[in-house]
């Protein structure tokens, strides 16, 4: 959360940070191993089943990458907002709005070439997410409403609004099932591997990470946004309109989350089902955390979480351990990072307090 020295020193600054994240992962896996052993399974076997499940075959890898994609988007969403000192708990809702926009464009807009149709659907998904995120930003800057509260509320509104639409207004005729019609062929993202769910969306996700990293570290916009996050009064005294950046950060954050929903729909789900996200928006919070709110770090953190999730099924099949065990491991990772973060925070606070003269 704190490295500030720009990409010139990316490695110098990221490495110690990454070190803490890696340590947290290691500790979480160790504790997880102990839990597995207590459950009467050889931890080595359990973990190797997990690895098999995530990387054991081409299909496993495709599956793993498919799973990684939405986590990158939502992780980026949370991380970017956090750079402006905003806690966006609403990635899930923004994801739903993005998915909704994508499905509307995919189903109801017809007669476009694939290129335009896809571009339009993606743009719609990110704009819808941005609007939903921006709404929370607007509530904050104009009414002073804490973004944590408003994004939680907006989650409920988005999720149930979408659910309502799927059950009636936009349900696939004749309306037996709670789902929309399939999107047009022209709106579907190209597959990277036949008969798998993996689409080019993964490239879009990685590209967005690189782009946001560039914005944060190499543009005046990013630098001003970070200054608003770190020292709002100094930013204001430097002529920076803090409200503009708070709103902008929330909108961009929402846009990234909207792409998570859009890429799910356009990449492999092709239609919208009720509750079509298993909580990617909330996982994004942990991903951003593990990735130290650094866009590139987020990509790696998303990979870890995806591998755990994908590997869990194989582990369950082979060892009989419940796949929810990986949720425990995920929780432990976050907990260990929090502990390290807390220690560092306390230390830095002590030092900077002593430094003021």
């Amino acid at each position, binding site marked *: 959360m704190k490295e500030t020295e720009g990409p010139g020193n990316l490695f110098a600054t990221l490495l110690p940070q990454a070190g803490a994240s890696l340590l947290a992962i290691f500790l979480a896996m160790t504790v997880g191993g102990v839990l597995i052993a207590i459950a009467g399974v050889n931890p080595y076997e359990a973990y190797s089943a997990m690895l098999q499940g995530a990387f054991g075959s081409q299909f496993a890898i495709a599956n793993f990458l498919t799973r990684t994609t939405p986590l990158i988007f939502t992780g980026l969403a949370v991380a970017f907002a956090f750079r402006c000192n905003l806690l966006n708990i609403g990635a899930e809702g923004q994801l739903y709005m993005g998915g909704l926009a994508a499905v509307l464009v995919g189903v109801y807009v017809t007669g476009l070439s694939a290129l335009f149709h896809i571009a339009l659907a993606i743009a719609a998904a990110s704009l819808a997410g941005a609007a939903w995120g921006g709404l929370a930003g607007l509530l904050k800057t104009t009414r002073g409403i804490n973004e944590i509260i408003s994004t939680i509320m907006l989650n409920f509104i988005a999720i149930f609004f979408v659910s309502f639409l799927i059950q009636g207004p936009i349900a696939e005729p004749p309306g037996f099932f709670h789902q929309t019609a399939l999107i047009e062929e022209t709106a579907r993202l190209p597959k990277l591997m036949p008969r798998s769910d993996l689409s080019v969306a993964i490239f879009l996700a990685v590209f967005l990470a690189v782009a946001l990293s560039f914005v944060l570290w190499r543009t005046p916009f990013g630098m001003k946004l970070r200054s608003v996050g770190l*020292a709002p009064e*100094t930013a204001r005294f430097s002529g920076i309109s803090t409200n503009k950046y708070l709103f902008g950060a929330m909108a961009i954050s929402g846009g990234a989350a909207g792409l998570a929903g859009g890429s799910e729909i356009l990449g492999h789900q092709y239609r919208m089902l009720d509750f079509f996200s298993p909580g990617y928006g909330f996982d994004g919070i942990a991903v951003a955390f593990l990735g130290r709110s650094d866009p590139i770090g987020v990509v790696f953190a998303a990979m870890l979480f995806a591998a755990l999730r994908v590997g869990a099924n194989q582990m369950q099949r082979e060892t009989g351990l419940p796949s929810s065990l990986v949720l425990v491991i995920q929780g432990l990772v976050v907990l260990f990072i929090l502990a390290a973060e807390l220690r560092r925070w306390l230390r830095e606070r002590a030092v900077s307090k002593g430094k003021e003269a």
Partner: protein
Amino acid sequence: MIEMEKITKVFPGGVVANREVDFKIASGQVHALLGENGSGKTTLMNILYGMHRATSGTISRSSQTLTIGSPSDAISHGIGMVHQHFMLVPTLTVAENVVLGTSAGPNRLCPFLNLREAEERIASLSREYRLDVDPRAEVWQLPVGAQQRVEIVKALYRDADVLILDEPTAVLTPQEANDLIDVLSNLASRGKSIVFISHKLNEVISLADEITVLRNGDMIGMVRKKDTDAKDLARMMVGRSIEPPELPNRSPGEPMLTVKSLCVEDDRKLEAVKDVSFTLRAGEILGVAGVDGNGQKELVEAIAGVRRAVSGSVETKHQGVSNREYARRIGHVTEDRLKTSVVLDFSLWENFGIKTCDTSPHASWLGMNIGSLKAATEAAISEFRIKSRGPDEKISSLSGGNQQKLVLARELGLKPDILLAAQPTRGLDVGAAEYVHQRLIEERQNGMAILLVSTELEEILAISDRVIVLYEGKIMGALAARKATREVLGLMMAGERLEEMERSPGERN
């Protein structure tokens, strides 16, 4: 008696902040610690207080080695520290603040707070050491000087017999500083040991028994007060003697800043600036004198465009530009450096570029030109002799004075035609302060219009062309600095109008 022997501190990154420094504190004495910005004073005292760990060296008390790994260790050894930024909870009372973090119950096992008893003890400490602290007052209502005494009470309440104060007078008005010095010498005469860090040599001379001078992490020497004077100390500190600045003749140019009937409110919505009018011309330094808290901050912020005026007007050549552009055209050295001038988590170059990162030559459609920002920062570092490891270092690891120099370098680097300088030399060593005064005079020669706000009359009298005095938000009068005397200014600062004094000169003294 506490003894620090051969203390060496190497920070990660290789900065040697202290090199084999010996430091002794005898009981009942005031030991002053002097040295240039970045010479290692704060670091040395942070080691004694357990905030930093020395790389090598020992700390002992009556030849018994102490291990001090944290502030609570230090406190348990009777060492207390008063930081420049107070660690008080504004909404709590004095007593509540004092007992925070102690076991205020009858014993450690009793979870209940016994405030009554604490209040009595605070009252008696206050009486004994003449601290004038009301245990039931709420902290936010107290002036800065009183808050500082609460910090002292906090240390005494924890049975400190060694009290470290890091630049305690930097935030005080001259009157408050004098009071503090009385309090401290009283504490010393009752057997407490005091470590006193300050850049103000006259304070050091009037208070200290012994003086240790650091330069660049090395201990240069230890002298007794009776064997030295301010000139000597300055020479020991910076290696040369310090000359008072000279203001060359210059007739002011066109008006650059016109303030008309300005009224401004403070954060509590009370009127802080009342019907203030003045004109600042090119090539002129206008000193704004006054006891801190008489509207200076609000006045400057209103001119800088970061605080809305209730009525009246501020006229410059820069009306109608965006806030951002306005901030670039008007240099502003703010009063509260940490809160409003720097981003502690940013590197030096990011702090340097915070106003200019989006204009040429530092930006293009491709993004920021980090190279040119770093080069500009590099130039500022050598121009202002900022002690640092380079543009990539985080500003939070610079010493206080060096942070201030970076802010000055940034604002002067804007080449503004108006500079608002609030306490520009706060926290600077005498050498750096001399340099800044010279720079301000130089900029004045080149036509900059400078508003100099300072609570130090010496500074105002030394480099201003004209002086206005603020009292309770109103201007008590304006006069040429050459004709101003400390006495007249003092009376104006206490609320007497210049005109009235001139009308009845006989009553003045």
